[in-house]
């Protein structure tokens, strides 16, 4: 089973209680596969247990990147969060490990 990490790099940033996850595809083909397989719903499913309320996907074709804005996922945000990783920097790896559906290939 392929994961996002097989096709892309991921970086997480934070603003308040919202995480943004930048997925940079390795190639045009990888970008097409991610466009088809890595939907906002799929990302929402992956982050729901951490409190994700809403996921918006922005496409950035010139760089072959997707930007996922995941709201409500940072336990209130880095300033008051009691989590080990208050920024959610490591959430990039949760997305990187997300499996892609076979039919998106």
């Amino acid at each position: 089973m392929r994961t996002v990490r097989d096709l892309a790099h991921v970086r997480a940033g934070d603003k308040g209680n919202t995480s943004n996850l930048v997925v940079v595809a390795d190639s045009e083909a990888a970008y097409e596969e991610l466009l088809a397989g890595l939907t906002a719903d799929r990302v929402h499913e992956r982050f729901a247990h951490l409190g994700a309320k809403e996921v918006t996907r922005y496409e950035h074709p010139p760089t072959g990147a997707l930007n996922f804005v995941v709201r409500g996922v940072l336990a209130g945000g880095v300033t008051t969060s009691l989590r080990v990783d208050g920024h959610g920097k490591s959430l990039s790896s949760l997305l990187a490990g997300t499996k892609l559906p076979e039919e998106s290939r």
Partner: protein
Amino acid sequence: MSSDRLRIGGGAGYAGDRIEPAVELSADPGLDYLCFECLGERTVALARRRSTEGGHGYNPLLEERTRAVLADCVQNGITIVTNMGAADPTAAAARVREIAADAGHDGLRIAAVNGSDVSDRFEDLHTETTEGEPVAAYRDRALAADAYLGVEPILAALDRGADVVVTGRVADASLFLAPLIYEFDWPYPHGEPSERIGQGIAAGHLLECAGQVTGGYFADPGRADVEGLASLGFPIAEVGADGDVTITKLPGTGGTVTAETCTQQLLYEVHDPSTYLGPDGVADFSGVSFAEVRKDAVRVEGAVADPPPETLKVSLGYDAGYRGVGEISYAGPNARARAELAGRIVRDRLSIRGLDPAELRTDLVGVDSLHGDLGDEEPYEVRLRVAVRSDDESTARGVAREVETLYTNGPAGGGGARMETDRVVGIVSTLVDRERVDPTVSVEEVEV
């Protein structure tokens, strides 16, 4: 400017960042500006509280950084722009003057930019936070309220011949954009969409986290190998008068600048790429593309910015009580079950003692502390972490101590207990009308 292109270095990506990369940049005779972005969301509120408790209101590394780079910057004609003034730009600028005087830099001009502090005009803030809560609810616990200033006061300082500009809260990208507008005499504020301002904002956004665009937060051994992370170099933007931008770094420094590192940083902490809001314009990054023009040099194209908005973002820092954290480790056979038992004991102890924190969480580091419990195999070692937040310091401390007492009162084999208590600064955001904010600039010469 030593050539037709302006060269701006990113000297820091956050308050506590490494100093050597900025020293390397300041030794480059071809550099024109060295900008240090040192303010996270909480930083000003923390600094203001420090200053009310007898400490400095400016960046704790201001003196070390200034001493490390100033002589070379003076020698090479490099202007420094930084928000290390945090909660007290005036005191920070005075300290820089003292350091410059000690080093014999007679006549050096040091500017202080004030006016981001709007804590004395709460009634001018918009009534709701960006999350839709009433701003008034934070008034009694407010520690700081600062508007994100744009390029204007930095331009004023440069216009008055400043060699070092020390600001408080300024939007990150503005530190880098101001030198471009000043040196190239770009029209500002721009009345219609501007490609040059857009490119300048993009350059600033790419540089503001320093090492993140040169290969920091990128390496993944075997997947994305980055050479020389221990001596990671910080970025340089080379910008032409027409707004063409190349991101690069000094030869011989560690790290890498590629289209991928630039793409990750372009969208970092951005939501909708077509609407990146800042005080100097609403940037549209949706058409931005990158081209690798030589090793560690990436050309940036396609950014544009609408005119500056009528409102400025305000970060409001408030006292959110105390945080107590206690940790203890278990290893070997049945480690997870013993750590879980330890966590239950702590919770039971709290109810027996009547400690009732506002918030409590227990995590098993090595199992579920970062991504929740994904049901993977048993770990060899586990660290129980209990964290609480409470308005009451003794509750926070008491909970942390209950973890330590597991040494002799808990499951078998608990080791390496640690506890800590600290104060918590929360942040909410709101807006203020631009016309209600009044930045001021003072420039003073160093006298030896």
